[in-house]
């Protein structure tokens, strides 16, 4: 029995050396698919967790169009979706240049592989840069809001134009005071505090009370999918519950609404952006390998195909992030 087994193995010397090709796909490609399937499950775990929190807070979740409405050089213009659509096109286009590089590799055309790999890396870098700009806008915020003791975010809108939000600098009355941020080099060495908002709560609340043209926009969503805006009387009553001035976003609180919204934004787009960044780095490494002729000597460009699989997967994930974070 044992001799029978050993003879078959000896006859089949490719069996444990990677020579056998299950599914007619090479070892490297199959392993890349293993990785892609497991990574797809990781991403779906994140997106489903996002869906869980959204279903749990279905009547108060922030509306993406009202959060991501910036476009370069169009300051103050309400431009929902355009920027993220542009990012999507950049990523799809870099996917196309990648698949063209793979195609050129099959025909052993080194110069074309070099050209398309360079374009792919540039496209990826543009995408990562765009995402950095998106993060910058998200973190710094534009208008500011107040948070209540119960963790609700109140934004401010004009009475005659409820679609237009009011920035804190237009509301706040200046109250003279010399409150400065406590840093470890100013008071006791072990005590400090986070950055103070531009306006104190008293300035915002007293300014709000004296300006009858401003209303509170709550987190709650009505049946038509719009945020509920309080009347002036209700607003005056609710403003007394304000506890914090919130400007922009961090992992604890954000001016857009539910705290988890910013956490998921940072986590999911950050994890995806990290994938793009590592993809760009791998692309650049492969680019130089092609340039010095490594795969020309090896006789095939399968490595380009394998990083191509990874790169397309990153694009694939973005298609889902785009849908579930920005569209739905």
């Amino acid at each position, binding site marked *: 029995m044992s001799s029978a087994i050993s003879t078959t193995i000896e006859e089949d010397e490719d069996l444990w050396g990677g020579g056998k090709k299950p599914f007619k796909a090479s070892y490297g490609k199959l392993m890349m698919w293993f990785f892609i399937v497991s990574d797809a499950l990781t991403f779906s775990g994140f997106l*489903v967790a996002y869906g869980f929190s959204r279903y749990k807070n279905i009547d108060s979740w922030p509306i993406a169009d009202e959060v991501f409405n910036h476009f370069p050089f169009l300051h103050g213009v309400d431009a929902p979706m355009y920027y993220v659509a542009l990012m999507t096109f950049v990523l799809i286009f870099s996917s196309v240049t990648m698949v063209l590089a793979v195609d050129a590799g099959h025909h052993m055309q080194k110069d074309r592989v070099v050209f398309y790999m360079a374009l792919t890396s540039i496209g990826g870098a543009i995408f990562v840069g765009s995402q950095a700009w998106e993060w910058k806008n998200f973190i710094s915020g534009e208008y500011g809001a107040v948070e209540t003791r119960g963790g609700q975010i109140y934004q401010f809108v004009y009475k005659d134009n409820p679609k237009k939000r009011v920035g804190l600098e237009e509301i706040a009355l200046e109250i003279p005071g010399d409150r400065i941020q406590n840093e470890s080099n100013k008071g006791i060495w072990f005590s400090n505090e986070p950055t103070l908002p531009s306006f104190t709560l008293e300035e915002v609340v007293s300014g709000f009370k004296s300006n009858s043209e401003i209303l509170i926009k709550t987190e709650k969503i009505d049946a038509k999918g719009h945020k509920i805006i309080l009347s002036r009387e209700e607003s005056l009553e609710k403003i007394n519950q304000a506890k914090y001035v919130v400007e922009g976003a961090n992992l604890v609180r954000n001016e857009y609404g539910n705290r988890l919204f910013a956490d998921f934004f940072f986590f999911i787009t950050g994890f995806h952006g990290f994938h793009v960044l590592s993809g760009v780095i791998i692309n650049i490494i492969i680019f130089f390998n092609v340039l010095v002729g490594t795969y020309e000597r090896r006789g095939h460009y399968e490595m380009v195909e394998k990083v191509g699989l990874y790169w397309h997967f990153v694009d694939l994930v973005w298609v889902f992030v785009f849908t579930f974070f920005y569209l739905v």
Partner: protein
Amino acid sequence: MENSTHKLEIFRGLLKFKSNQTKIWGVLIFLSIVTTIEVVLGIIKPEILMNTFLSTKLINWIFIILTLVKAYYIAWDFMHLRDETNGLQASIVITLLFLIAYLVFIILVEGNYIYDVLYEGFVSWNF
């Protein structure tokens, strides 16, 4: 793949391409059209698509279906799954479809349940 045989038709043979490169550009055009439709719908948000079907808005169903269509063409044409064996296609797609559909179902039902508990409960969460 070494013998570079590509299947050069998409839409079940409705559209045939002469070379792999023209097929790639064709798929790019198709993906761009789908993305443009998504963006336009997302900006206009037609009132008629705000009706719900299976407790999800029609517009969101359209977004999800278009996303799956895009995912199919990225996987099949950019990741060359169209040229792989049926066994490899099935082991990737069925695994992911089953696990993700199960996860989505069970977690979203749970999220909805927790919403109901918080909404109908006697405890006020907005104090």
